[in-house]
């Protein structure tokens, strides 16, 4: 039985198959409308994350399956001190597959060790959020047509942004990838990611502070939030936050076919005036998130649709 703990759990070939399946689901949703009839997805959300939970639930419902679960630790038996390993043993008797979100890193892995049903890591602390990475990859592949020969700008909080770290780890497995790391000095990509991932694999990258400088050459811009609490003082935050507001004027500097992605929710780093730009694909990304989770559920449940 397979679980999904880390985006790298799937080989590049397996990812291709998964994304092919997601593509087929997008093209022929009706074919899959009953594929999971009689199957139940449990969403075990020990901390609230409405978007991620709804995305998994929408995926299962689109496949004709049903859903059950909880959306905060307070409303679950965890509040009574039940361990993750006991909870999953119980859930295994009720459901066919589960998605777990937990504030503690490694909790879904503990669950997978005691589970008799597939476990999807739907986010564990600052560690992994593999379905977001799969979503990002599918969005890029579907809208850009490829996952190689790309120059990718990563902008915002590169220090704590786990979606960025995961995406880097996933993309370096493809050919001819180049990164432009756009962040304030305080939020630079951590040394271990630069050293252990980029340098080790000889992936070219440049680091810049100004977004304008990077924009004209990018195939793809991945925006993330710069959170106020990451800064030591208000002054630095105010100085930096305007640098990273993507607006119409900045978009005018970007190539015509550059895509803008964002893991959402956005706060103010992308001005709403950009939303109508055909290059802004962050809402389409949400839709791809459902397709990839549908493909994932089918794959982990080993269900094949002809």
């Amino acid at each position, binding site marked *: 039985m397979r679980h999904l703990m880390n985006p790298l759990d799937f080989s590049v070939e397996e990812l291709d198959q998964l994304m092919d399946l997601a593509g087929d689901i997008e093209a022929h949703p009706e074919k899959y409308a009953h594929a999971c009839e009689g199957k139940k997805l449990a969403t075990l959300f020990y901390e609230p994350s409405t978007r991620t939970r709804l995305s998994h639930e929408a995926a299962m419902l689109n496949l004709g399956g049903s859903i059950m679960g909880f959306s905060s630790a307070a409303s679950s038996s965890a509040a009574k001190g039940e*361990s*993750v*390993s006991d909870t999953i043993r119980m859930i295994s008797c009720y459901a066919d597959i589960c998605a777990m979100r*937990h*504030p*503690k*890193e*490694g*909790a879904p*892995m*503990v669950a997978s060790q005691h589970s008799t049903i597939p476990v999807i890591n739907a986010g*564990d*602390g*600052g*560690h992994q959020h593999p379905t977001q990475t799969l979503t990002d990859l599918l969005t890029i592949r579907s809208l850009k047509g490829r996952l190689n020969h790309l120059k990718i700008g990563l902008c915002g909080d590169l220090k704590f942004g786990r979606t960025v770290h995961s995406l880097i780890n996933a993309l370096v497995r493809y050919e001819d990838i180049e990164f432009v790391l756009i962040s304030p000095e305080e939020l630079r990509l951590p040394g*271990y990611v630069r050293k252990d991932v980029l340098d080790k694999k000889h992936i070219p990258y440049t680091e810049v502070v100004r977004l304008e400088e990077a924009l004209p050459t990018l195939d793809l811009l991945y925006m993330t939030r710069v959170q106020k609490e990451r800064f030591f003082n208000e002054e630095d935050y105010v100085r930096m936050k305007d640098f990273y507001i993507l607006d119409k004027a900045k978009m005018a500097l970007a190539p015509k076919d550059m895509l803008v992605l964002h893991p959402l929710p956005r706060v103010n780093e992308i001005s709403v005036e950009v939303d109508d730009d055909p290059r802004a694909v962050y809402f389409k990304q949400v839709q791809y998130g459902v397709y990839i989770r549908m493909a994932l559920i089918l794959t982990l449940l080993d269900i094949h649709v002809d």
Partner: protein
Amino acid sequence: MVENRLNIGKISEGFVLDHIQAGKSMEIYKHLRLDKLDCCVAIIKNARSNKMGKKDIIKIECPIDIIDLDILGFIDHNITVNIIENETIVDKRQLKLPKEIKNVIKCKNPRCITSIEQELDHIFVLTDEENEVYRCKYCEEKYNRH
């Protein structure tokens, strides 16, 4: 030999752990759980050594299958493990970095599931042999020796 100045009797069956970095012997005593064993253990601290200046030595009189020495490879793979039978050294074991270590070190990441889940083994996995990097199996936090 230098260590014999302390007049510690010969071992008929067991181990002599030699070339332990000076001062580290109690740590090894703890990790090998020698306090739990009902056998004769001698710890020699700060013995003179030509190679190391100073070193520690541990002699353990016990059946040789009773102790799991893999962990020594993690603590210090430069330790010489002499296996004794009939009062003579019959074998010297090469120490390697173990692929996995269980319940020897604790994960220090406060966000790690090991910080709250009862009865969960603390497991570290060798992820980079060249640089001797171990990471928590659950949260992937790097273990820093120093």
